[in-house]
Structure formats: structure tokens, C-alpha cells
């Protein structure tokens, strides 16, 4: 049944490894950028709030496919923006894809963090201010630690979505799992087994992630 799975010819594990790497770098990037955006959206400076809000609305309502393609065709082919990859096409596609994923996923991280900030009781921040902490200290020492703890579950959802979204990188020629699947179903007449293998691959990636982070979110939840 599985004789079509010629690992010499189809680098199955390599393809999923690319998916994992895409997910990892994009997750780190969007966590950082998303937190900065969330900070902007709750800051006392109106212009920052406006920028954060505009950014989130624009990027959240644009299809991720369009963002990824725009990174490739717009930034690279039209503006020759090569992200320091030079002539290395593989690295180039990978970096452009990560850039697009970060730009898009950060909006969801931002909204998750912001809703987490809203769960922190006002008394916490009032107490912190009564001690004389300034805005950044309140944010860093009191509010964000509590916000992050209540935000593990929504962030887990964002991470799982990101893992599945990395398949879109195949649109700009990154050799990840869905690109390999496309090649395999075109070459082999074994649709069901091939689809089953790739489906299983993604389930192996996302299911433990969900279960583990669900457990973490229960562990660290702020008991109130």
C-alpha cells in the first residue's frame, strides 16, 4: 500500500521540517511584534493607538495569501528587497514568507494580548500606581505578567492557526509540506494514502500543541 512513498524521491520529513521552522520563526516574530502592537493600542498616546488600530484592521482583513504574494512579487521582484538573502533563492522565499506570516499573525497576537490586558482587575494597576510605578513599570511588572497568563489559551489557538497557515508559503515556492503533497498527488495515483499521510502529519503537529498548551493555560491561570 505504501510502496509509492519513495523517501529517496520525496523528502517527506524535510518538507515537514520546513513547516516546523516556518512556524517557529513566525511564532517568535509575531509574538514580539504583536506585543508591541498591543502596547501601542493601550498606550496613552492617541497617535500610537490610531496606528495600532489601523494596522490591525488593515492586516486582519487582507487575505494572508495576498500578503505572502505581495511580499514575494511586490517587495522582492519589484522593489528588489531581498532581506539579506542575496542570491540564495531558498532562504529568500523562506524569509519573505516569515515576514508575511509575522505581519499577519501579529494582529491576532495583538488582539489576544489586548483582551488579556482587559482581564486584569483595575485594582491591580491602581495599587501599582499608588506605589508610584510609571506606565511602563505598571505594564511590565504588574499588568503584562498577569495578562500573559490568562492569554495562553487564545495564543495557543493563534499558534495552531499559524501552523496550518504555513502551507500558504507554497504559493511563493517554499518547499514545505503542502508543496510536496501537491507534487506527490500529481505524480502518484494514490490520492487517499498520500492525503492521509499529510493529514496525519499536521495532526501530529497541531494536536499535541493544543493539548500541551491547554494544560499550561490551566496551570498558569490566575486564580481569582
Amino acid at each position, binding site marked *: 500500500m505504501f510502496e509509492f512513498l519513495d523517501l529517496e524521491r520525496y523528502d517527506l520529513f524535510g518538507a515537514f521540517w520546513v513547516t516546523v521552522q516556518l512556524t517557529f520563526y513566525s511564532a517568535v516574530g509575531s509574538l514580539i511584534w504583536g506585543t508591541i502592537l498591543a502596547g501601542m493600542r493601550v498606550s496613552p498616546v492617541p497617535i500610537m493607538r490610531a496606528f495600532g488600530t489601523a494596522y490591525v484592521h488593515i492586516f486582519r482583513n487582507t*487575505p494572508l495569501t495576498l500578503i505572502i504574494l505581495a511580499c514575494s512579487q511586490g517587495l522582492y521582484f519589484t522593489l528588489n528587497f531581498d532581506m539579506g538573502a542575496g542570491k540564495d533563492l531558498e532562504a529568500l522565499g523562506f524569509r519573505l514568507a516569515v515576514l508575511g506570516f509575522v505581519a499577519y499573525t501579529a494582529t491576532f497576537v495583538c488582539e489576544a494580548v489586548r483582551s488579556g490586558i482587559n482581564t486584569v482587575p483595575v485594582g491591580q494597576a491602581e495599587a501599582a500606581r499608588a506605589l508610584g510605578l510609571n506606565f511602563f513599570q505598571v505594564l511590565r511588572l504588574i499588568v503584562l505578567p498577569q495578562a500573559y497568563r490568562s492569554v495562553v489559551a487564545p495564543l495557543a489557538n493563534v499558534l495552531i492557526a499559524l501552523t496550518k497557515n504555513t502551507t500558504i508559503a507554497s504559493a511563493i515556492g517554499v518547499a514545505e509540506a503542502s508543496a510536496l503533497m501537491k507534487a506527490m498527488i500529481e505524480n502518484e495515483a494514490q490520492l487517499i494514502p498520500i492525503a492521509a499521510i499529510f493529514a496525519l502529519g499536521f495532526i501530529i503537529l497541531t494536536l499535541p500543541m493544543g493539548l500541551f498548551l491547554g494544560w499550561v493555560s490551566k496551570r498558569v491561570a490566575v486564580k481569582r
Partner: protein
Amino acid sequence: MSDLSVLYDAPGPRARRRNVLIATLFVILLAAGAWWLYGTLDDNGELDARKWDPFVTDSRVWTTYLLPGLQATLTAAALAMVIALPLGAILGIGRLSDHWWISKPVGAIVEFFRAIPVLLLMLFANEAYAMWTDVDRSDRPMYAVVTGLVLYNASVLAEVVKAGILSLPKGQRDAAQAIGMRKSQMMTFVLLPQAVTVMLPAIVSQLVVIVKDTALGGALLGYSELMRSVGLVSANYGNVIASFVVVAVIFIVVNFLITSFASWLEGKLRRGKRSTGVTVTVDPGAQVGGVGGGMAVAAPPSGDGEKA
């Protein structure tokens, strides 16, 4: 603006000065970024009038590429929604069944389709139609896109339906049982009609996800939807950046309208007579091939600051 009060007091004179300073620095930073972008675009001649003019002067851009593309996007989205809703309702009710031999398999199906990228479902559907049906080659991308979207979104909507039914006050079930209704009667006459009002906003929000996902079909299956028109327009006029911007704006406007409608609906239903004041929201993470997962049942009006 509930979060305002959490983080800072009304600013005094010093805080105000500092805020002005931060704002100034931020504006300078933004301006620098905008200047760099403008310079780069200008150096590459992307701001030339001849690249942007066609969208205003040449009606063919709209009639040949953009509007048919938009129509294809909306058609696929509408079809997917119309087919996924009843399926989702059946799956959602199935998950709540008292018989384990119904609820367990249905639960497995729902979880399975939520764990898989929607693109994989589309690729699979595309090949399946090619192998086992005689769908016309030119129609196949559309069939594949809609099938992929239906499989995935039915699972997401199943969770919405489940959450909606579970959000109803327990007294509704008790009362239905007290007057001797069967389980099926209770579902059709008592629970579902009330759950629909709870679920509507979440269902409308899911439309945004579906509209965005149709673009996958354009990029990878050759479905001639709105995003594919970027390539067609820029091939004719050599204006890659301009066509990306215009198409993105169309998408943003469409999705913004849908989102606004969902918020308006939510407000209307909350004030409505038949509502319990509870709403189900799909986790915002639900996006392209969304997250599924997060269903939150929001308590009656919480006075969230700005509703996105």
C-alpha cells in the same frame, strides 16, 4: 475604553508633556518609514501616474478583471457558507447527542477537519474531482475551493452551534422536559430557535474567514477569483504594487462591511426581546484555516471599549 482605566490615570501636566514627546518621536519614526517607502517606490517608478491611472481611466480593468474576480470570490464564499451551515448544524447537534455512538464519531470528524490546513483539503478535493468525477476542467477549481471551505467551515460552525446551544439557560431544557417534550422536539422548538440568535454574529464573522480563504484557490488552484486578478492586471499594465494595493483595498472594504454588519447584528440581538443577552464569539484566531478551537461565550453586555 475599559483598558484605559486599567493602565493609567488621567494624565497630569508632566504626563501630558511626556505623552506629547512620545507622540512626536513616534510621528517622526512613522514619517521616516513613510519617507523610506515613498523613496523606494519612487526610485522604482511604482508611483508613476501611468501605473495608477488605469484603475480610474480604463474601465476595462474593472469590467474584465476586478469585478468578475470579486464576483467569483463572493460566489465561492456564499456557496461555501450556504452548504456549510446545515452541515455544521447537524454536526453540532450530533456532538451534543446523548448516544456515545453518535457524539464520539461526530466529535472525531469535527476535530479532524479542524486540525488540517484548509489548503490540504482543497488540494485533495481538486484531485478527487479530477479522478472520480467528470466535473468540467474549467469548473474544477471552483468545486475544489468550495469543497475545501465547506469541510473546514462546517467543523468550525459545528463548534459555534454547540456553544450556542450550551449557552442557553438550563431552565429552558428543564421546562421543555417538564411539559413532556421529546429530545427532538426540545431541540427543534425550544433550543435551536433561541440558539440561532446567539449564534448569528459568530456565523457572520465566519464569512470573513471564508472570503479570505477563497484567495488560496486563486493562488494555488487557478480559481479566477479576485486575488488572481492582481497577476492579470499587472501583466497588462506592469503595475504590480498598484494592483496589489487596489485588490487589498477591495478585500478590506468587503470584510470590513461584513464585520460591521456582524457587530451591528450583535448589538441588535443583545437589545432584542428574544435574546438571553449571551453571545457566542469565535476566537479571533480563527482565520485562514482558522483556529477553530476557541469558542467563547460572552456574558451579557460587558461594555468592551472599542468593538473591532
